[in-house]
């Protein structure tokens, strides 16, 4: 399998996943017992200018006794026009606008949390693998961290660092009086608000990476190349560095699987800190039965995860000689 066909194949899978996600998004309200669509549409009937709303492609995709396939096609058409419907809760704002405003807050939380936890976690895991004493000390902690629900970790941090030791603000992305700008004051304020949700994600994810790395290294140290190197008198440090390098590859693949969980973690963590990302938005949507907003947020989350997966695949391809060598063989 060459690099190009590797990328084509991955892209194919992700496009297909996107297709399935959109179809699910369209189908779920129709598959549910009761009459959710009726409820949904009736909520618009009470709003002013409802006739105008009804004429968007998106609204048309929700029925009016037309054949299902027409509704489905309209759903896709709406999507290609960047039309995700209108929010009830924040009427008359468009869902796509609301969701895109929230997205940066997720990115600024999730990306650093994943990257930093990956680096520190792998490092700590490697340290644990090399020392039996540290292993016995650190592993229970790692297991505890990875077992904690993200939002509970958020609650604990909020209690410790906003109530017991009031060092950080407890809600929002910045102080109410602030206007977003690139001024130092705003940036400091923003970072203060960002720290606790970031730390919650970081701590929970850290445990998982550390456990993974520790197990992988112990596994690699028992491999044949490790034995060979040891038989040829290589020092422990050298063998460890080889094991570490080989353990990195599965950890990069693990990154792809972790993204989905990180997003789930961010959704609930944001709620604890009223951090205005997609998770907080979803809560608003749930509480206000704003289905379009919820589904819009779902789609954006899926796209975000797909893009992240694709990037990780590319990184993997660039790093793993097995994929690279296959590419060289084809060229």
């Amino acid at each position, binding site marked *: 399998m060459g690099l190009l066909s590797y990328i084509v194949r991955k892209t194919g899978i992700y496009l297909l996943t996107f297709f399935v996600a959109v179809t699910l998004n369209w189908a779920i309200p129709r598959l549910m017992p009761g009459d959710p669509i009726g409820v949904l549409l009736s909520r618009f009937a009470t709003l002013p200018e409802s006739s105008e709303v009804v004429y968007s492609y998106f609204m048309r995709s929700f029925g009016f006794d037309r054949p299902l396939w027409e509704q489905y096609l309209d759903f896709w058409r709406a999507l290609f026009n960047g039309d995700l419907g209108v929010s009830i809760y924040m009427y008359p704002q468009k869902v796509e606008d609301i969701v895109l405003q929230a997205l940066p807050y997720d990115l600024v939380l999730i990306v650093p949390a994943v990257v930093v936890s990956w680096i520190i976690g792998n490092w700590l895991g490697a340290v644990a693998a090399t020392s039996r004493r540290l292993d016995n000390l650190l592993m229970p902690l790692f297991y505890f961290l990875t077992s904690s629900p993200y939002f509970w970790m958020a609650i604990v941090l909020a209690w410790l660092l906003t109530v017991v030791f009031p060092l950080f603000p407890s809600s929002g992305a910045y102080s109410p009086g602030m206007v977003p700008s690139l001024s130092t004051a705003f940036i400091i304020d923003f970072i203060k608000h960002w720290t606790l949700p970031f730390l919650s994600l970081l701590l929970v994810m850290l445990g998982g990476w550390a456990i993974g790395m520790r197990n992988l290294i112990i596994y690699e140290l028992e*491999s044949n*190349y490790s034995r060979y190197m040891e*038989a040829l*008198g290589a020092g422990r440090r050298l063998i460890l560095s080889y094991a570490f*390098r080989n353990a990195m590859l599965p950890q990069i693949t693990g990154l792809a699987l972790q993204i989905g969980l990180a997003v789930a973690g961010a959704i609930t963590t944001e709620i604890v800190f009223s951090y205005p990302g997609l998770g907080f938005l979803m809560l608003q949507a749930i509480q206000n039965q704003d289905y379009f907003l919820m589904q819009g947020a779902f789609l954006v989350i899926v796209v975000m995860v797909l893009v992240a997966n694709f990037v990780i695949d590319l990184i993997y391809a660039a790093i793993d*000689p*097995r994929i690279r060598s296959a590419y060289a063989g084809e060229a």
Partner: protein
Amino acid sequence: MLLEVRGLRAYYRTLTGYVKAVNGVDLQLGEEILGIVGESGSGKSTLASSIILPKPPLRIVEGEVLFRGERIVAPSDTSGLTRVRYRHISIIPQYAMDSLSPTRKVYKIIKDLARGLGDDVLAKARRRLRRVNLPERVLDMYPVELSGGMKQRTVIVISTLLDPEVLIADEVTSALDVTTQRAVLEMLRDFKDSGIVRSIMIITHDIASVYQVSDTLAIMYAGRIVEHGPAEKVIRDPLHPYAQALISSIPKIGIHYKMQKLKGIPGNPPSLRNPPSGCAFHPRCSRSLDECSSREPRMVSKDGRRVACLLYE
């Protein structure tokens, strides 16, 4: 003597007890090619491990290993090994196919292993690669890019790069086809004849292919050496009943034959957890005496070789 093994017992510690993989081995290795032959589970690979890499779960229980008269392995002391590994005693491991880390290029592996030995290591590696008919660019390749045979030869080059006095070749031919097996064995012979290495211990279950390159042969059974002597003598006229059964089961010397397929010896190889009392071979032996089940045979000299069998005591 380059290498001397004295009364060595090496057991594997498992959760359900000891596996007595090497159970009293005496062996001397001079400037020669020694073939160590035995069925799988006879302890021959463990013998190799206990000489160069005795680490848990393998435990040296008794005996010692000397290199040029200096002790390198003893129960609970293997510190002597650090001085001799690679430079003086080296090994071509059993699983050459994954003996090289997949994520490092070959030249990097060589540089790391021969650290502190100067830059000419790579130049030497290039010459050696040519010697085993590999292109120099192997150095710039990842192990995954090499074919099985290329990997095998690369490992041979790496293992012998520092011209060790003693080379242990552990089942180097088992994963290869017949022609390649021959080539690899001849390569080892060439390394010995040209003085790159001074003695080689070839560990194998394939007696038919190894006897042609060996000067001496040692037959192992249940963690012990049962017969040890010049290759010609052992093959032509084996003394120990196990060696006889083993060699007679080869239809025609020179034809490739794997001992795994041996049908000539009735019964199963013994369990190394609870080896039979006395001579471990007695339950399968057609010439066993009454006392074979109670008395352990000693190694005795007979007819220019050493044999451990009560028939000759």
